[in-house]
C-alpha cells in the first residue's frame, strides 16, 4: 500500500470551478488521490459533490467556458494530462484511458451502426481499416457476453436493450486494452437484475485484462461489492479515503458515517426510524468558511465553522491501508464506531 510504483494515475490538488450567473461554483476543490494498477477505486458522494466533474477533468472533458481547471496535475505515464494539447489528449482518450458513462441510451450515436461506432476506435487508435477492425469488434462484443456479435455489429442502438447497450459501451471502452477505465455510474440507469450482470462482467474483465477501474457511484451497495478502496466526496472535496473494508466497518468522517447509516438495508431491524443526516446539501456557490459539512454534523465543534480541515493521515489500529480523513474530530467518530461494534470485531 502507498507504494508509488504501482500507481497508474496520480491526481494532485485538482480544482475545477464553473463561472455561472449565480457566482463561482467550486465543483472540485483541491482533490488529490491516486489509482493503483489493477485496482477498483470507488468514488462516492451525492449529487453535486463533484464526482463526475473530477472524472471528466481527468480526461480533459470539462466544457470551457463555463468550466475552468484552476490548479492541479493529473500524472499518467510520466506526463501531466492537464498540460497536453487537444491532439495529444485524443491519443490517450479511448486508448490508454477509457470511459463509460451512466446513460447507455444517449452515449451511443443513434444514426450509426454498432460496427461503425466500434470500428472507429480501432481506426483512430490503431490505424486499421474497417475490414480489419470487424473481427476484433466481434470478438470484443463476444467478450462482454453479447449472444450473436455479428448480428449486433449490424444493428443500430435503438434495436438493443439498455443492458445490451451498456455492454456495447464496455466493449468499446476495452477495445484498445486501456490501463484505466473511468466508469461514471455505469449501472445507475439499469434494473437490478441487469446491474448484477454488468457488475459481474466488469469484475471478470478486470481480472482478465488487469485494468484499473475508477468507479463513480452514489450506490453504497455497488461500492461495497466492487471497490478495493473508496474516496468519499462532499461539496467538492475529499472527506475520506480508506480501504472499502475499513470505511464500511469504521467510517472516520462524520459524513461517511451518516451516509452509511442512512442506507436502507435488506436485513436487520426495519421497524424503527432510519438514521438520517439532518439538513440539506450546501450550495456550492456560497460554501461556509469552515468545513462544508459542519452545519449538518453532530460531531462539529466551534472551530469547525471557521477552519477548513485538510485531508490528513489518521491513526486506526485495525486499518488495512492508509486512512485519510478531512476532519479534526475523526478520532471521536472512530471511538463511536468501535463502541457500537460487537466485541468479536463483528463480521456483521
Amino acid at each position, binding site marked *: 500500500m502507498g507504494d508509488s510504483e504501482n500507481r497508474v494515475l496520480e491526481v494532485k490538488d485538482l480544482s475545477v470551478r464553473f463561472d455561472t450567473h449565480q457566482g463561482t461554483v467550486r465543483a472540485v476543490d483541491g482533490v488529490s488521490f491516486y489509482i493503483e494498477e489493477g485496482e477498483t477505486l470507488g468514488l462516492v458522494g451525492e449529487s453535486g459533490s463533484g464526482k463526475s466533474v473530477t472524472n471528466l477533468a481527468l480526461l480533459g472533458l470539462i466544457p470551457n467556458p463555463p468550466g475552468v481547471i484552476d490548479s492541479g496535475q493529473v500524472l499518467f505515464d510520466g506526463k501531466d494530462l492537464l498540460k497536453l494539447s487537444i491532439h495529444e489528449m485524443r491519443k490517450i482518450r479511448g486508448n490508454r484511458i477509457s470511459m463509460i458513462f451512466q446513460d447507455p441510451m444517449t452515449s451511443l450515436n443513434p444514426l450509426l451502426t454498432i460496427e461503425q461506432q466500434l470500428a472507429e476506435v480501432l481506426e483512430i487508435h490503431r490505424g486499421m481499416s474497417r475490414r480489419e477492425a470487424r473481427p476484433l469488434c466481434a470478438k470484443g462484443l463476444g467478450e462482454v457476453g453479447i449472444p450473436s456479435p455479428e448480428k449486433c455489429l449490424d444493428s443500430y442502438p435503438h434495436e438493443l436493450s439498455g443492458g445490451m447497450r451498456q455492454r456495447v459501451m464496455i466493449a468499446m471502452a476495452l477495445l484498445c486494452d486501456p490501463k484505466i477505465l473511468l466508469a461514471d455510474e455505469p449501472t445507475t440507469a439499469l434494473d437490478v437484475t441487469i446491474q*448484477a450482470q454488468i457488475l459481474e462482467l466488469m469484475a471478470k474483465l478486470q481480472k482478465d485484462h488487469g485494468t484499473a477501474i475508477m468507479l463513480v457511484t452514489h450506490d453504497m451497495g455497488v*461500492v461495497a461489492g466492487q471497490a478495493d478502496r473508496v474516496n468519499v466526496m462532499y461539496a467538492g472535496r475529499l472527506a475520506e479515503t480508506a480501504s472499502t473494508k475499513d470505511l464500511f466497518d469504521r467510517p472516520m468522517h462524520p459524513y461517511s458515517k451518516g451516509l452509511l447509516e*442512512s442506507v*436502507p*438495508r435488506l436485513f436487520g431491524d426495519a421497524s424503527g426510524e432510519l438514521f438520517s443526516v439532518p439538513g*440539506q*446539501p450546501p450550495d456550492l456557490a456560497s460554501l461556509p468558511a469552515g468545513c462544508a459539512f459542519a452545519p449538518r454534523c453532530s460531531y462539529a465543534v466551534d472551530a469547525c465553522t471557521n477552519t477548513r480541515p485538510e485531508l490528513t493521515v489518521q491513526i486506526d489500529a485495525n486499518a488495512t491501508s492508509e486512512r485519510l480523513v478531512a476532519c479534526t474530530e475523526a478520532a471521536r467518530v472512530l471511538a463511536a464506531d468501535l463502541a457500537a461494534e460487537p466485541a468479536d470485531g463483528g463480521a456483521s
Partner: protein
Amino acid sequence: MTETLLEVKNLAKHFPIGSVGLTGRPDHFLRAVDDVSFDLHRGESLGLVGESGCGKSTTARAVIGLHKPTAGSVKLEGQELAHLSARQWLPYRRRMQMIFQDPYASLDPRQTVGSILKEPLTIHKIGKPRDRRLRALALLDAVGLNPRYLNRYPHEFSGGQRQRIGIARALALEPDILICDEPVSALDVSIQAQVINLLKELQERFNLAYLFIAHDLAVVRHLCSRVAVMYLGRVVEVAERDQLFENPAHPYTRALLSAVPHADPAVEAGRERIVLEGDVPSPHNPPSGCSFHPRCPERDRVGARCSSEAPTLIERDGGRFAACHLED
C-alpha cells in the same frame, strides 16, 4: 388487518400500438398490466416492486383513474371506479392522492408554494380563502418545512424539500390513500432517509394507506407491511414483508433479492448471487406460458408446463400468494 379500503380485481391496461388497414383500428396491443388483483387496508402500506416496464406505474395510474382500465375493477369501499368519467371521479380523488417520482417536474415552476398547496382546496371548494391559507401553513409544518416558505417558488428549494412540498400537496385534501410512485428514487441517500421517515411519521399521524411503488427493495422493506412483486404486467408474488424478504416463494423474487447489492463488503464478498440470463422480454410480445420462464433458473424442475400454461396467483403455505408451477 382492518377494513378493506381499496379492492383491485383483474385489472388490465392494454395500450394500442400501430394500426392496419383503412379502418385504422389498432392491431397490436402492449399489455402493460394484465390481470392484477390486490387489496389495500386502512392504515397499511402495500409495496409494489418490479423492474422498469413491469407495469407498476401503469397499475398505479389505472387505480387512481389517470388511465382508463381496459378490464377489471377498482373499488373504493365497495364503489366501482373503473368506468367513471373524469367529472364523476372528482369526489373520489379527494380520498386518493398521488405523489410523483420527479420533484423537479411535478411542481409548476410559476406557482408559489402557497398557491400549489391551496389549489386542491380551491378545486374541491373547501373552506374560505383565509382558511385555505391557514391550511397551507399547517401542511408546510406537517412536512417539516418552515411556514415562511409559503411565498417562495419551487426553484428555490432542493430536491428533498420539493418532494416535501409534493407530499404536502397530496395531504391537502386529507385523503385516506396515498399512491406514491417512486417518491424517493430521485433523491440522494441522506435526503432519501429523511423523506422515508417523514412518510412513516405521516402514515401514523393521519392513519394513511400507502400504495408504494418502488424498484428499490430495501426502501420498500423499511416502509411497507406487505409487498407485491410484478413481472411483465402480472403480480408474481404477494406476501407479508418479513416472509417475502426472508423466504421468497417465486424464483423471480429470489433473483431480484439476490441481485440487490448490499452496503456491506463482508456480505458482498461471501454471497452467491443468482444472475438471471437475458433481458426482460417486451410486453409487446410476451413469452408463452409463464412470462418468466425463458429466464427462470428453476424451469428445468417443472418442465414443459412453464412454457405452455400461465400459472395463477394462488395462496401457498403461510398465507403468501405466488404464481409459479413449482409451488403447485
